[in-house]
């Protein structure tokens, strides 16, 4: 019947049936194509996952193989600079200092690569213990004096006395985060100063690194936490893996904190801040989970 209640003719019915058949046929053909494309995509996806896994495993293996000899280079050059093998003349001393700085840089890159591969494999574990962050920061300050003074930078430490900076963190991972930020600051500052500080901020403890270096443009700021992002470093040939900030963010988030950036623009220096809850929600000696983003 049509809309005016007139019976539909056999011819009209036949036409409608044929039309419907053709439409169904079209749907079947499209479904077949969709199935083929889906299979192709699944195969490609499986291959990509396999390649990604291989890449991660290679990264991990290569980094492990590099770490031991680099640690040895760093250790012995450090001992030489400290005079453990006797006094050294200024010229050789300067050469050894450069070797030490380079070794330090390479060790940092290798550690970053290892940590990224752990995060990607879902294997990053955090051993949370009550830790006095002021001790970590002071040790870091002493460790980084050599490369900072090597660039003739004023290197300052600002930790208020008589304040308690103890909170639950994974001390090894957190030192790595702080080290990455300080290393970046020194790398991107050619003159002036780098100041590292620790302070209470509301419910948080904040570690900050402030420098008079190249600064950060607004366009670059948002991309800095991506893997292999170099910021202005790409132009400066400043070295490094481009993974430090990505890792810092992941680790800070796993601790319930975050990493913040402040800069008024290029040429105006920058400040990187890691803010952690003064007392994390996890009791000590329990592992944190990796962040979901």
């Amino acid at each position, binding site marked *: 019947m049509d809309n005016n209640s007139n019976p539909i003719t056999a011819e009209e019915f*036949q036409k409608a*049936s*044929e039309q419907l*058949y*053709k439409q*169904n*046929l079209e749907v*079947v053909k499209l479904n077949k194509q969709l199935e083929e494309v889906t299979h192709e995509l699944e195969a490609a996806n499986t291959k990509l996952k396999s390649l990604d896994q291989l890449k991660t495993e290679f990264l991990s293996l290569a980094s492990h193989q590099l770490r031991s000899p680099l640690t040895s280079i760093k250790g012995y050059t450090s001992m030489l600079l400290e005079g453990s093998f006797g006094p050294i003349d200024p010229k050789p001393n300067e050469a050894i200092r450069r070797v030490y700085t380079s070794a330090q840089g390479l060790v940092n890159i290798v550690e970053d690569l290892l940590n990224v591969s752990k995060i990607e494999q879902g294997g990053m574990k955090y051993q949370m213990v009550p830790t006095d962050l002021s001790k970590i920061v002071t040790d870091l300050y002493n460790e980084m004096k050599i490369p900072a003074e090597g660039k003739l930078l004023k290197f300052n430490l600002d930790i208020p006395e008589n304040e308690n900076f103890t909170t639950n963190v994974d001390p090894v991972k957190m030192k790595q985060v702080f080290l990455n930020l300080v290393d970046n600051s020194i790398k991107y500052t050619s003159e002036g100063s780098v100041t590292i500080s620790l302070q209470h901020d509301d419910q948080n403890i904040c570690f900050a690194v402030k420098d008079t270096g190249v600064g950060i443009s607004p366009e670059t700021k948002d991309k800095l936490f991506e893997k292999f992002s170099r910021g202005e470093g790409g132009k400066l040939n400043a070295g490094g893996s481009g993974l430090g900030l990505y890792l810092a963010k992941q680790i800070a988030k796993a601790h319930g904190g975050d990493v913040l950036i402040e800069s008024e623009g290029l040429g105006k220096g920058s400040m990187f801040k890691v803010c952690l809850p003064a007392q994390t929600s996890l009791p000590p000696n329990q592992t944190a989970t990796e962040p979901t983003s």
Partner: protein
Amino acid sequence: MNIFTQIITRIIKEQELIIGPLAWIEAAKVQGLTVHEQGVVNMSDGNSPQDIVDRLVAQYERLFGKASREVCRDAVKGLVTGLTPEQIPSSLK
């Protein structure tokens, strides 16, 4: 299963993809063809297999037009290559 039974079964199954269970219902109406449950077909003695195939194709074409004849031909392309020209039902040529 002989070749013509395979041809008939393939045609019905291909039509089923497009028109659903109606494909089997219409096939059951074809003279000389018996459709059992679970998609088994039998041809009656005294009917040439080519004629049964032609009647089946015509049944679908009567309802759904030339497009359905093309579907039948495409469905059994691979199967008819084993037949001599005289053996191929006219509706599939």
